[in-house]
C-alpha cells in the first residue's frame, strides 16, 4: 500500500467531516506526527488517549521507539464507545459518523479579546474519545524496564548468535572433517578455514547426509536391542502355543471318529446278527444223536442265533466251508447265513478229510462255491 495514499486518505476523510480547508487539515496532521517525533527525539514520552504511548528506549548503543497501545476491551464496548464518541450532532459521510464541528473562525483578528479561548476544563475530550484504560506511571516504568531488558537481551543474543553459529559450525566441522577426509583425497582436500567454506562444501558434497552432520543421537539403542530379544522369545512362545489347539482338535476328531466307527460297526453287526453271537463261546450248542451218520457228522441246536460261518469255523476249523452247512440246512436258513436259535443245524460230512481242511485247493474251491451260493440266493453278509 502506498504510504502517501493513506495520509491523503486521512486528510480527505477529515476535510469531508470537518468542513475545514484541506490545507489546514494537512498541516494539522503533519504537525501532529512531527510533535510526536520531536518528543521522541527529545526522549520524552507522549501519551495519547485513544492511541497509546510513544517513548524511546535504549537497547545497547542504539535507541528504539516503544509504542504501548491503549487496550481496547470487548467489541461491544468498542461499539458503545463509538456511540459515546459520536454524540448528538453527527454527520454521516460514507457510512462514518463523525461529530459535527463547532464554529470555526479562520479569519485573523488582531483583537485578542475577540478570540474565544475555551478553558481546558470545559473541553470534554474524554467523553468523545474512546475510553481506554489509562496506564499509570508505575506500570509504564515497569513495562519500559521490561522492554529495555528484553531489548538488551536480544542485542546480546544477536551479538552472540554469530559466535554460537560459528561455534556450532566449528563443532560440526570436526565431525565433517573426519567424514570428508575419509572420502576426499588429500590432493583434492580443501582447507576449511571459515565456516562459510564448510557450508559451501556441504552443499557440493552429495555424499554427505544429515546424519553425518548431526553430533548427538538419542540414547535409545540399548532399549531397542532389548526389545529385539523379546519378540523372538515371544514368537517362539506364540508358535508353540499356536500348535496346541490344533493338536487338541485333531485328537478330538480322531477320538470321535473312532467312537463313531465302533458304534456303526457294532450296529451293522447287530443288524447282520453276527453281533449277537460274535463270540461263539457265548452260544451253547446241544448235540443230538445223528441218525444219518453217513451224510452228517453232527446235529446241533444252538440256544441263540448264530452265524453258520462261526459254526463252520468251530466244526470245520475254517469258516470258508459254510456253504456246505447252508445247503444241508437250506430250508431253515431263509436265504441268510444266520441260523435261528433253538433250530436244528445239520453239519454235513465232507468228502475230504479233516486234515485237508486247510489245504489251499479245497479252501479255494469252498470259497468259489460260497460265492456262487451267495449270488444265487442273494445272501448278504
Amino acid at each position, binding site marked *: 500500500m502506498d504510504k502517501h495514499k493513506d495520509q491523503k486518505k*486521512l486528510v480527505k476523510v477529515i476535510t469531508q467531516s470537518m468542513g475545514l480547508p484541506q490545507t489546514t487539515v494537512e*498541516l494539522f*496532521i503533519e504537525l501532529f506526527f512531527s510533535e510526536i517525533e520531536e518528543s521522541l527525539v527529545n526522549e520524552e514520552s507522549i501519551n495519547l488517549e485513544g492511541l497509546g504511548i510513544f517513548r524511546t528506549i535504549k537497547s545497547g548503543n542504539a535507541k528504539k521507539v516503544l509504542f504501548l497501545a491503549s487496550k481496547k476491551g470487548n467489541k461491544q464496548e468498542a461499539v458503545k464507545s463509538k456511540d459515546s464518541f459520536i454524540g448528538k450532532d453527527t454527520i454521516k459521510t460514507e457510512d462514518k459518523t*463523525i461529530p459535527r464541528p463547532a464554529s470555526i*473562525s479562520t479569519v*485573523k483578528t488582531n483583537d485578542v479579546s475577540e478570540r474565544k479561548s475555551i478553558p481546558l476544563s470545559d473541553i470534554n475530550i474524554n467523553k468523545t*474519545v474512546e475510553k481506554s484504560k489509562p496506564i499509570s506511571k508505575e506500570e509504564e516504568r515497569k513495562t519500559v524496564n521490561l522492554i529495555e531488558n528484553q531489548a538488551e537481551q536480544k542485542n546480546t543474543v544477536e551479538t552472540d548468535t554469530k559466535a554460537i553459529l560459528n561455534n556450532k559450525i566449528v563443532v560440526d566441522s570436526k565431525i565433517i572433517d573426519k567424514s570428508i577426509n575419509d572420502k576426499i583425497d588429500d590432493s583434492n582436500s580443501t582447507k576449511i578455514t571459515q565456516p562459510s567454506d564448510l557450508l559451501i562444501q556441504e552443499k557440493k558434497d552429495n555424499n554427505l547426509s544429515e546424519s553425518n552432520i548431526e553430533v548427538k543421537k538419542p540414547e535409545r539403542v540399548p532399549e531397542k536391542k532389548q526389545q529385539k530379544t523379546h519378540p523372538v522369545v515371544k514368537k517362539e512362545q506364540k508358535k508353540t502355543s499356536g500348535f496346541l489347539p490344533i493338536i487338541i482338535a485333531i485328537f478330538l476328531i480322531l477320538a470321535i471318529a473312532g467312537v463313531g466307527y465302533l458304534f456303526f460297526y457294532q450296529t451293522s453287526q447287530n443288524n447282520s446278527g453276527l453281533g449277537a453271537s460274535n463270540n461263539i463261546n457265548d452260544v451253547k450248542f446241544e448235540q443230538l444223536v445223528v441218525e444219518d451218520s453217513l451224510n452228517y457228522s453232527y446235529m446241533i441246536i444252538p440256544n441263540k442265533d448264530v452265524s453258520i460261518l462261526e459254526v463252520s469255523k468251530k466244526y470245520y476249523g475254517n469258516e470258508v466251508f459254510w456253504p456246505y452247512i447252508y445247503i444241508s440246512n437250506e430250508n431253515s436258513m431263509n436265504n441268510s447265513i444266520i441260523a435261528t436259535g433253538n433250530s436244528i443245524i445239520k453239519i454235513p460230512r465232507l468228502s475230504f478229510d479233516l486234515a485237508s481242511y486247510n489245504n489251499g485247493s479245497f479252501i479255494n474251491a469252498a470259497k468259489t462255491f460260497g460265492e456262487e451260493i451267495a449270488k444265487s440266493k442273494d445272501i448278504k453278509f
Partner: protein
Amino acid sequence: MNETDLCERIKDKLEQQGIDISMSDIKDLYINTLSSIEEVLKDEQSVDVSNFGSFWRKDGESSSLTFFKPAEALVEKINSR
C-alpha cells in the same frame, strides 16, 4: 506530554503559520484523526505515515491490539541525537 499539551503546541504552530483556529476545533481535529485511523485499522488495513511509521491492528476473540512500526527515518533521527 499528553494530548492537551500536544494540541496546544499544534495550535501555536498553526498560529505562527497564520492559521487561527480554536482549541475546540483542534480537539475535534485530533479526535477525527484518531477516529479515522481507527476506522482504517478496523477495516484490516494499515495506516502508513510518511517518515513516521505504520500502524496496524490484530483482533483477538475479546480484544484487539494496535501495533506500530517506526520508519527508518524516525529511527535515524532518534539515534542521530
